[in-house]
């Protein structure tokens, strides 16, 4: 298998309801990525696009085909990925495999979502389509509900008193906002404190408003090229050196591991093994903090803390710049925003920008050589990517 590099990135601001269509947002990000790669649309051999709910938010299927045509990449193979919140990470992993195998030399992979446009009731309903529609959705399950159940289970299983866990969870959101404040692409630009979190509206007990990511609109994408092609295009290639992906059944079928998401452990192990690294080798992580508790749970399964002790990373500021494992210095899903089809690609863009020294100085992490991304779609599609600075 050949080495594969990220040669260009494109990322729209993540916002509340956008006045552009999915296709327009993706085309903007795509042109930025293609231009940054010193390529033209005609050089792109295939497109891999994550988009979960375009059918519902705009009555639009097949956004991938319209996007290719829109930017002048006429008649190229273009495929849509639906993996819930992991869609564009899965798209990138697939794109990586096609280039690594030698089938393509230069492709575009990313994603777009306009979830905020739908308004909360419809967005809540359509997101809930990620659950088992027959056996679990009828109970009134929603995504905040699912992670709320994991939070209560975490408290009882690991004997962390709920009050203490909620404070640890609040620290996740506080840190997210602290860094999102300085990210010009982020949806929220305001700092919050623990009290703000604990006083906010109860969504699904014990999760409150500031424990939850927003509905967001936006697009993000990258151009991937073979090592040889990358040499012609950039002197700052970021290689994808490890990939992993796994799936899960409905929540009740994960009983042997909850609140751990077993799929993440399977996927991360694949990615780490392929990259030849251990958790302690990761310099920067963008993980799936759709809800504050999800961040704590993810950090443990990714090997950054023992099970039941993830909250201590926050208490000891180990996840901040300068800490043992900087996590979500972009602001994460909570403060940067979470247009679900785009999030996986957004995480890759962030790590590339950090490695290239291109982020705002207030949130620049020094010396990032190895980055890890982590996305969780639905009740359990997980995709992990390991990135390595190539210069």
């Amino acid at each position: 298998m050949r080495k594969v590099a990220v040669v260009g990135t494109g990322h729209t601001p993540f916002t509340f309801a956008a006045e552009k269509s999915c296709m327009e947002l993706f085309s903007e990000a795509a042109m930025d990525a293609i231009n940054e790669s010193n390529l033209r649309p005609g050089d792109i051999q295939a497109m891999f696009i994550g988009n979960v709910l375009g059918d519902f938010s705009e009555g639009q299927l097949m956004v991938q085909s319209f996007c290719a045509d829109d930017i002048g990449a006429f008649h190229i193979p273009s495929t849509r990925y639906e993996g819930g919140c992991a869609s564009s990470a899965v798209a990138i992993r697939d794109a990586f495999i096609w280039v690594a195998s030698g089938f393509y030399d230069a492709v575009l992979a990313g994603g777009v979502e306009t979830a905020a446009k739908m308004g909360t009731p419809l967005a809540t309903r359509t997101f809930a389509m990620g659950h088992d529609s027959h056996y679990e959705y009828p109970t009134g399950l929603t995504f905040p509900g699912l992670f709320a159940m994991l939070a209560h289970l975490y408290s009882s299983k690991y004997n962390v008193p709920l009050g203490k866990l909620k404070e640890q969870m609040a620290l996740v959101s506080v840190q997210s906002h602290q860094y999102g404040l300085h990210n010009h692409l982020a949806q929220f630009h305001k700092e919050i404190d623990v009290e703000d979190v604990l006083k906010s509206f109860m969504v699904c007990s014990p999760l409150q408003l500031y424990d939850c990511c927003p509905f967001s609109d936006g697009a993000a994408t990258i151009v991937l090229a073979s090592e040889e092609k990358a040499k012609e295009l950039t002197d700052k290639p970021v290689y994808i050196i490890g990939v992993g992906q796994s799936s899960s059944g409905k929540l009740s079928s994960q009983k042997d591991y909850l609140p751990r998401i077993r799929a993440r452990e399977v996927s991360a192990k694949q990615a780490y093994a392929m990259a030849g690294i251990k958790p302690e080798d990761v310099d920067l992580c963008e993980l799936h903090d759709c809800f504050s508790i999800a961040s704590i749970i993810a950090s443990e399964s990714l090997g950054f803390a023992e099970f039941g002790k993830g909250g201590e990373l926050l208490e000891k500021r180990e996840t901040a710049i300068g800490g043992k494992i900087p996590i979500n210095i972009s602001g994460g899903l909570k403060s940067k925003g979470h247009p679900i089809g785009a999030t996986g690609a957004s995480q890759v863009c962030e790590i590339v920008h950090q490695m290239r020294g291109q982020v705002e100085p207030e949130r620049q992490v020094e010396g990032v050589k190895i980055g890890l991304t982590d996305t969780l779609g639905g009740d359990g599609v997980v995709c992990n990517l390991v990135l390595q600075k190539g210069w």
Partner: protein
Amino acid sequence: MDYKLTFKEFNSALKKDKLLGRKCHDCGKFTCPPKMACQECGSTDLDIAELSGSGKVVTFTVSYVASQGRETELPYTIVMVELDEGPWLMGNLTDIDPNKVTMEIVGKAVKLGPHSKVLPGDAYSIGAKEAEGGFARPTFVFA
């Protein structure tokens, strides 16, 4: 390969207060809700079995937000129950005011109450012939 215990059959049985699942010929364990393959060992040699409907609460949430069209249900309590036979089953807990629910219910014994609540379905399940008459949801009460 025929799908032996479909949602249609599970749903009809639940509306009559019967909890059906599958018992594995190879490992003897139960799979509920039913699947094509055994939850535990992956075998597809499974019988249809009736479960007791009894178990204990392993986790819960009280929801104050609803999917579009279900706002009248608010607030409501979702529970994950570990059935006596082993599988976990998601349902609703109905014999306590949702605003009074706390971590105290974790570990409490529950059983399937009579008359499982039925969700009528919405625009996205119009074609669901397997759910004619609505989707029954396991409705638990304290044992």
